[in-house]
């Protein structure tokens, strides 16, 4: 556990101290590789991940899954970045060190059980990410950075407020019975009074669920949803995203789309877990589905007719974040395992599957766009034609990424989106069903209409660039670097492989994470069987559901 | 083998003679009907007209001649008359001609008959187009246009017959089987007969759809398509046109006269007489009417379709009631 958190720190120092840029880049890759090695090790030797559930830090299945994805993405990005090798105007030391710091803080986010720690780590991640956007320098990059910084800070401040509200909910005094509905009254009766304050770890909050003040929990959830939602980029809180993605180098944008946003998502999920425990799943789900649908819709509207492919990518990220919260929302609405279908179609599982493939696909697509940007030196789609002819391999990777991100089979997102639709059907959420289908279709049409012309057509005339080797004035000199091709193709192949053949241990990991997001009975163990006959009592979970042992 | 299971309606005791007589009778009759029309028209025109056997003489003359082929043509041009006539001859085996039953009918043969006509038309049109002549192209275009419009009418008529008799074999759909239908939905049957008559006029390129005797190629339909054929090819075409008239006429006669059993020699003679009468009728129409303007022809054919559609409605309604 500690090893995982600290493994990157020496490399941060190395990045700052080493004299040549080559060595610094090597140390970046080494840092990411070391981190990934520890992660892999933690899957094989669980002792590396396990910590006492009550403590501040522990890798539960959810966090473990997320940190693995983030680590994988960072490793690929770091390798890609070595090849990307652009003239770095911002001090490269700081830049590389910030990447590693970002990794470290995101690791902390995933490992944090205490919500305060989670917040601190998220804020740290924001701050570490800021210099990464300001890569290209110039007024537009600056604006993007400023916007990112300010909006994220405000968002994260709201998140803090939400966490405080959650804290307030734990200080509820024993309320007068008359103001209570049957549920809370009974719960209150059974709960022990006068204990010391409840800790702010997720586990503690879930265990203390009957004693939590529901109104404050709800307020907390809303604040966290809006606050961390800003960081995650849910519409209408997404406005920093297009700017940031258009200005940051594509591999860095990949880190944002597949890594940083996951951290914020995890923050929301933690509070969502508490909501589930206090029986507020439907409430939380409602807002999550609303934000999810709105995000997909807004993304679709802004994708159509957009002429800036990197901004379009930003909006696809908004779209996928929307899909993620929508899926989790459906999980809270009661889309549990159906008797007919088994666990592999539950919305929570779909959300985890979508998370997995979102990270992989974002890597593929942004790396491919990295190639394209290097070749054409323009963000405008109208300047980019015939990438497939200019650079067949990058073109194929780009098309692959495009298909993957628009959820065409055989790519994994197809399965997750189908499972979401299935969940909506099973829970009879017809509005959500129609809304989801229509909005993702709008996004599909928008993305394909805008981006396909980039790959096809007669190649457009390339801008003459000052090649580093002098002789070759075309951009073809750079992309042959295998360090760029390797991670891009590797991510594509991995995404494809996991879509076509999902090994058992991946399935198990996804299920373990999904189980944490499935509504569980509230303290069934503590309530006498006779009292549970109240009609509005949170019911017991379906058979086969893992209870508390599902996590940690 | 399926062939063995075929219902071949031959007179049981023997007899090749009867069969030969039937086949020869049917094959030799068509030119005579053309002669009847010609004679009628001559009579109306106050002329004597050509001899009764003139069509036979023409055919013999054509067969004795060689053939002239334009250098623009290909084998398609030569295949046209042959395929057309072969299709008609094949259709002859499924239409009740001399007698109540067809020779080689089977369930669903009515569709084959209709499509054999279409096959013949297709090859006639292709042969015409093969010459590269604008006139023949014009004729072909008109031919396919009017055929397209008469096709639904034909099928609707057949549907009426099928519904009223509950049968899908052409000879079973006609004749005495129709008596009940004439009894219960007489008006519908009248409409069918009317529509069939219009179809006959169209298919055989008679007035008011087409004027076979006009000398202005610009207004012709069928005749202009066969301008370039000569010798045996043209003989095939001429004979085919007459055979088509006989076949459709026989169909019409069988549909219109449900009381007749068409059995034996009297039946054969009656059939001959009925066809002669039909030819006479056509001759009278040709003598008393002018050819319609081309765009009025579509109206006529649409009318036939409507008539037959109405007949379908009547029959179906009768069945429901």
């Amino acid at each position, binding site marked *: 556990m500690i090893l995982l958190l600290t493994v990157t720190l020496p490399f941060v120092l190395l990045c700052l101290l080493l004299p040549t840029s080559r060595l610094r880049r090597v140390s970046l890759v080494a840092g990411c590789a070391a981190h990934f090695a520890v992660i892999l090790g933690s899957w094989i030797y669980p002792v590396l991940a396990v910590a006492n559930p009550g403590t501040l830090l522990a890798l539960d299945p959810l966090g473990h899954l997320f940190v693995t994805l983030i680590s994988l993405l960072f490793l690929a990005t770091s390798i890609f970045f070595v090849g990307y090798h652009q003239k770095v105007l911002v001090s490269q030391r700081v830049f590389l060190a910030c990447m590693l710091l970002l990794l470290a803080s995101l690791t902390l986010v995933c490992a944090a059980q205490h919500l*305060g720690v989670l917040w601190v780590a998220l804020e740290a991640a924001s701050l570490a990410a800021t210099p990464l956007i300001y890569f290209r320098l110039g007024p537009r990059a600056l604006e993007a950075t400023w916007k990112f910084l300010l909006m994220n800070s405000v968002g994260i401040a709201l998140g803090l407020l939400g966490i405080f509200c959650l804290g307030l909910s734990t200080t509820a005094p024993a309320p007068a019975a008359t103001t209570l509905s049957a549920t809370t009254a009974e719960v209150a009766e059974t709960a022990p009074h006068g204990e010391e304050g409840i800790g702010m770890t997720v586990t503690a909050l879930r265990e203390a669920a009957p004693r939590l003040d529901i109104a404050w929990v709800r307020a907390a959830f809303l604040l966290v949803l809006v606050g961390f939602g800003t960081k995650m980029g849910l519409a209408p809180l997404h406005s920093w995203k297009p700017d940031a993605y258009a200005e940051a180098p594509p591999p860095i944008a990949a880190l944002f789309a597949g890594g940083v946003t996951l951290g914020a998502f995890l923050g929301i999920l933690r509070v969502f877990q508490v909501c589930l425990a206090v029986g507020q799943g439907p409430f939380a789900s409602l807002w999550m589905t609303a934000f999810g649908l709105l995000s997909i819709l807004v993304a679709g509207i802004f994708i159509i007719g957009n002429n800036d492919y990197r901004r379009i990518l930003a909006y696809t990220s908004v779209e996928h974040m929307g899909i993620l919260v929508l899926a989790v929302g459906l999980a809270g609405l009661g889309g549990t395992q159906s008797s007919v279908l088994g666990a592999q179609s539950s919305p929570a599982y779909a959300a985890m599957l979508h998370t997995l493939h979102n990270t992989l696909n974002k890597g593929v697509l942004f790396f491919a766009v990295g190639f394209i940007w290097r070749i054409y030196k323009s963000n405008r789609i109208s300047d980019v034609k015939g990438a497939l002819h200019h650079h067949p391999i990058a073109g194929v990777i780009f098309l692959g990424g495009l298909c993957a991100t628009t959820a065409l089979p055989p790519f994994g997102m197809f399965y997750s989106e189908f499972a979401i639709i299935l969940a909506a059907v099973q829970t009879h959420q017809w509005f959500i069903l129609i809304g989801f289908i229509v909005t993702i279709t709008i996004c599909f049409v928008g993305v394909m209409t805008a981006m396909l012309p980039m790959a096809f057509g007669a190649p457009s005339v390339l801008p003459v660039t000052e090649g580093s080797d002098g002789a070759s004035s075309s951009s073809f000199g750079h992309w042959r670097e295998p360090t760029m091709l390797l991670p891009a193709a590797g991510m594509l192949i991995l995404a494809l492989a996991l879509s076509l053949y999902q090994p058992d241990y991946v399935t198990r990991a996804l299920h373990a994470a999904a189980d944490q997001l499935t509504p569980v009975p509230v303290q069934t163990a503590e309530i006498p069987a006779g009292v549970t006959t109240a009609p509005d009592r949170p019911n017991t979970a379906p058979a086969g559901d893992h209870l508390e042992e599902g996590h940690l | 083998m399926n062939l063995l299971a075929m219902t071949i309606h031959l007179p049981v005791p023997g007899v090749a003679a009867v069969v030969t007589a039937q086949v020869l009778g049917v094959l030799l009759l068509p030119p005579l009907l053309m002669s009847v029309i010609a004679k009628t028209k001559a009579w109306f025109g106050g002329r004597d007209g050509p001899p009764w056997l003139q069509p036979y003489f023409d055919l013999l003359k054509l067969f004795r001649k060689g053939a002239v082929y334009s250098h623009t043509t290909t084998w398609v041009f030569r295949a046209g008359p042959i395929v057309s006539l072969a299709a008609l001859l094949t259709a002859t085996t499924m239409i009740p001609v001399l007698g109540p039953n067809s020779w080689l009918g089977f369930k669903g043969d009515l569709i084959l008959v209709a499509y054999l006509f279409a096959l013949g038309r297709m090859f006639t049109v292709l042969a015409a187009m093969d010459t590269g002549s604008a006139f023949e192209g014009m004729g072909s275009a008109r031919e396919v246009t009017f055929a397209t419009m008469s096709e639904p009418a034909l099928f609707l008529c057949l549907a009426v017959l099928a519904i009223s008799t509950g049968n899908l074999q052409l000879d079973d759909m006609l004749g005495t089987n129709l008596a009940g239908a004439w009894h219960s939905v007489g008006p519908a049957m009248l409409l069918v007969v009317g529509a069939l008559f219009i179809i006959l006029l169209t298919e055989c390129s008679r007035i008011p759809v087409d004027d076979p005797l006009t000398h202005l190629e610009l207004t012709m339909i069928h005749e202009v398509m066969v301008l370039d054929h000569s010798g045996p090819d043209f003989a095939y075409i001429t004979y085919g046109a007459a055979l088509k008239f006989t076949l459709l006429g026989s169909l019409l006669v069988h549909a219109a006269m449900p009381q007749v059993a068409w059995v034996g020699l009297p039946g054969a003679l009656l059939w001959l007489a009925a066809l002669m009468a039909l030819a006479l009728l056509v001759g009278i129409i040709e003598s008393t009417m002018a050819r319609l303007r081309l765009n009025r022809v579509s109206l006529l054919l649409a009318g036939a379709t409507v008539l037959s559609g109405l007949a379908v409605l009547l029959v179906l309604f009768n069945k429901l009631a």
Partner: protein
Amino acid sequence: MLAALTHPIPDSLHTAIDGALVLVLLLNLAMLATSRLATCIRLFSFQCLVISVLPIAAATASDAIGIHGFFLMGGTVVLKVFLIPFILLRVIRTGDIQREVQPYLGFTGSVVVGAMMIGGAFALSSRLVLPGQAMSTLLIPVAISTLLIGLLILVSRYKAITQVVGYLVLENGIYLFGLSLLHAMPLLVELGILLDVFVGVFVMAIVVYHIRQEFDHMDTQNLAPMKEPA
């Protein structure tokens, strides 16, 4: 700790705490009214000082003066009262810009809107039921209004540095809110939060510095060229 907070607070201390909270409110309004950036920053610094005293008051209200409160106060004083204003003032000095010119919302207008926000905050918190007993009934309304006024500054000013101040005021509001659950957050986290705020401001100051370099002053109006194509 919970038990400590539920202990009745002496009247005199109560008055002092309430007075401090009202002072915070007034400082908010003053920040809205001032056009000089330096003044604004100093006002903020003073507000932080007032706020950092509050945990001590809360701690003295309980049976024992918690080490918790002292650490928190110390951290706040060092970071917010001295370090952050110092950085910001330095940026202003090098930036050679002193005033907020032509904000989106005029200064008088800002004060009026700010007052309305305070009213709203009080109205809202009258409907809130705080679990447990806070150190003062004013705490929550003041926290909310500070938060809202921070947002208002953030939104209505062009100058990047004022936006930083706005953000800090917002943060102060949250801090005040957090005082109501002093016990639930371990010290480590509280300090981490403070540190994060500090680093955040530090980074912001750097960015502001860059903005100055790019545009020769810190006006965010120069940012944001047309983005989404029609």
